[in-house]
Structures are given as C-alpha cells and as structure tokens.
C-alpha cells in the first residue's frame, strides 16, 4: 500500500488530523504507540474545550473511539516510528518492530517525552524511590516524605496526586516561583504538609538500595542542602520526539521541529508537523489539535494541486 499521507502520533493532534484526513477521503494511515498523548497520565483535564472535566485516560479512550469511528483510515497501533527515509516518490516510515510503510506525505504529531534530571543517583534509583508518573505511583508513597522536582503544571499535578498519601511533600523549583497554574498553586500552598522551595537546583539523589535523600543547591546563597526524602517525582519538562527525522527537517536547539506556522510545513517538502514536537510557543492539547487540522487541510490542498 502506498499512502498519500501517514500521520505519526495518537495524541489530540494526530487524532484530529486522522479524523479530518479520513473525512477528506485521503489514502491515510495513522501510526501510534498509544492514544492520548501526554495527557494520558493526567488525573483531571479541565481545559479540553467542550468538556468540563475528564481524566487523561478517558480522553485517550474518546480520541481512539472517535478515530476508529471513521472509515477509510488504517490505524496501526502499538507501533513506534523509529526512522523516516526519503525515497524517490516520498518517504519510507520505519517502526521499532521492523515494519515499514511507504507514503507521499508525512504529518508528524509525535509529541514529546519527559526530561530526566541527569544527576548522580537518578538512574540507580529509578523504580526505587525515583518515579516519573505520579498518577500511577503516588499511592505507593503512603506516609512517606516526598519531593516533586519542577514547578510547571505537571509538577503541581504531581503534588496534588501525592496529597492524599504522602506525609510531607516538598516542591523544588529552579526559579523564584512555580510557573504552573496559579489557582492550583494557591490551593496546595494551604496544605500544611506542603513546602515550596524556590531557587533550588537538584544535585544528587542519595541512598543505597532505596532513596534516602535529595541534595540540592540553594541558587541564592550557593549553599548545598539535603532533604531526607524517600520518594522523588521528576517533572522538569519535555523533550520533542523528533529524532526519527535525523537531518531531514530543520530543528531548533531544543530539538523542536521548526514549522511555518501558517501551514505547519517543515523545511523538508512533503513533511508537515504539529503539536508539541514543533517549535509552537504554547504546548497545549487544543492547540495541537488545531495545528494538526491546519496541516491536513494544507496537505489536502497540495494533493489537489498535484492532481490538477
């Protein structure tokens, strides 16, 4: 099968693109590992427009159901794209399991993944006190002293997830104040077991078999301090899933795919990108969906131009 379009990713951007492409009757496939994007692990999404409140998992299920309701789209799930190669007529899309697919055009909505701290002790203690999914693992830290690293929305969400379980929650923020949602921050600041530590740079995760502490530097005084924590949740931001393109498309120093924001075209003719994998200023579900739709409509114009 030679596709007109292959969409990479099953988050809000990929699914929105898939629905539009199917309704335009393109010869289209969507390849994804999972549905839902990064919101999959959010306990409560309250800004998905048209829905007052929804869990990330339910949002993912809704997205998948909406896509599967479309006729004429090949959904290749449980597959992760590993490499894109330019061919004479378009591109070859290769997956980690060794499958390959041919297409004229590509739209990537491959999103991003969480950054790691890259400090001593992190690798050694993953699964032994260091965790990256608060909604999954917060219940495992009952009556423990914990720390969340990162003051964005994901960090604040991790604090909220820990509140019913942990006996103490430190939030370590690199800057002068947490940058996450002010309403959530105000709410958690009222919890007596919560303590905000600003201007903190994590230096090391301590412990032998399990985590027993966290060493950080107070960036205002230069002093190094140790918190006696047993659990650490890392929420320090994201990295784009753009490696699969190699040098095919232009990326910025963060690895974000640079797009022309009117059409979502990348520097490589035939490849479009939308959502968190791009250099879009605001990484949001609703924006990803809108940008991906914009890309599909532009691809549809290209297909029609080529036919006429």
């Amino acid at each position: 099968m030679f596709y007109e379009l292959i969409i990479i990713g099953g988050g809000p951007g990929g699914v929105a693109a898939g629905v539009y492409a199917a309704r335009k009757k393109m010869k289209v496939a969507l390849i994804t590992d999972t549905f839902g994007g990064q919101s999959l692990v959010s306990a409560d999404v309250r800004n998905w427009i048209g829905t007052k409140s929804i869990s990330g998992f339910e949002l993912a299920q809704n997205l998948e159901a909406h896509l599967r309701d479309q006729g004429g789209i090949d959904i290749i799930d449980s597959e992760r794209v590993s490499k894109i190669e330019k061919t004479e007529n378009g591109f070859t899309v290769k997956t980690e399991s060794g499958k390959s697919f041919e297409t004229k055009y590509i739209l990537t909505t491959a999103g991003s993944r969480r950054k790691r701290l890259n400090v001593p002790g992190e690798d050694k203690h993953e699964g032994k006190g260091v965790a990256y999914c608060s909604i999954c693992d917060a219940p495992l830290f009952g009556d423990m002293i914990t720390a969340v690293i990162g003051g964005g929305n994901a960090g604040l969400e991790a604090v909220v997830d820990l509140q019913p379980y942990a006996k103490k929650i430190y939030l370590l923020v690199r800057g002068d104040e947490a940058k996450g949602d002010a309403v959530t921050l105000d709410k958690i600041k009222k919890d007596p077991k919560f303590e905000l530590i600003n201007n903190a740079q994590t230096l090391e995760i301590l412990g032998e078999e399990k985590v027993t502490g966290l060493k950080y530097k107070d960036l205002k005084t230069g002093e190094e301090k140790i918190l006696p924590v047993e659990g650490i949740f890392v929420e320090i931001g994201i990295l784009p899933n753009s490696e699969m393109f190699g040098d095919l498309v232009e990326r910025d120093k963060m690895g974000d795919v640079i797009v022309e924001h009117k059409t979502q075209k990348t520097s490589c003719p035939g490849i479009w990108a939308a959502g968190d994998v791009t250099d879009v200023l605001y990484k949001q579900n609703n924006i990803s969906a809108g940008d991906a739709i914009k890309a599909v409509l532009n691809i549809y114009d290209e297909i029609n131009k080529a036919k006429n």
Partner: protein
Amino acid sequence: MPIIIYTSFDCPYSVMAKSYLDKKGVAYQEYNLSRNSLIKENLFNHFGEIGTPLIIIGDEAFVGFDREGLENALIRLS
C-alpha cells in the same frame, strides 16, 4: 505458572497492561497496591523495585507497561 499484575488506582499503564494480557488471552491475578502498604514493602524487598504496573511472569518482573518485554516473556513461558 500464574501471572501476577500489581496495579494502582487511576494508572493508565496498569489498564493498558491488563488490556494487553486480556487480548493475548492470558489469565492473571491482580492486586491493587493502592490498598495495602504491607504488600508494597514485601514487593520492594522481593523485587528490589516498585512501580505500577508491576507484572510478574515466571521469575521475571516488569515495572511499567513494557509491551516488547512482556511479549518475549510470554513466549519464553509458553
């Protein structure tokens, strides 16, 4: 040999792992870790790590939903 999956409330990866095992037609026993701190401590002492889902297949333990790892472990078990 029984397959055991330890899960927690609201963990999407636990749901995905169970759904994977269901699709494979594999029987398993589920324990929800959100409910029992004693189990948590025992698991840590036994496997040296903890997180959900924790899936035990034969003498192998998998933390998180590692589709490829599970696939290979099920093949080895059969």
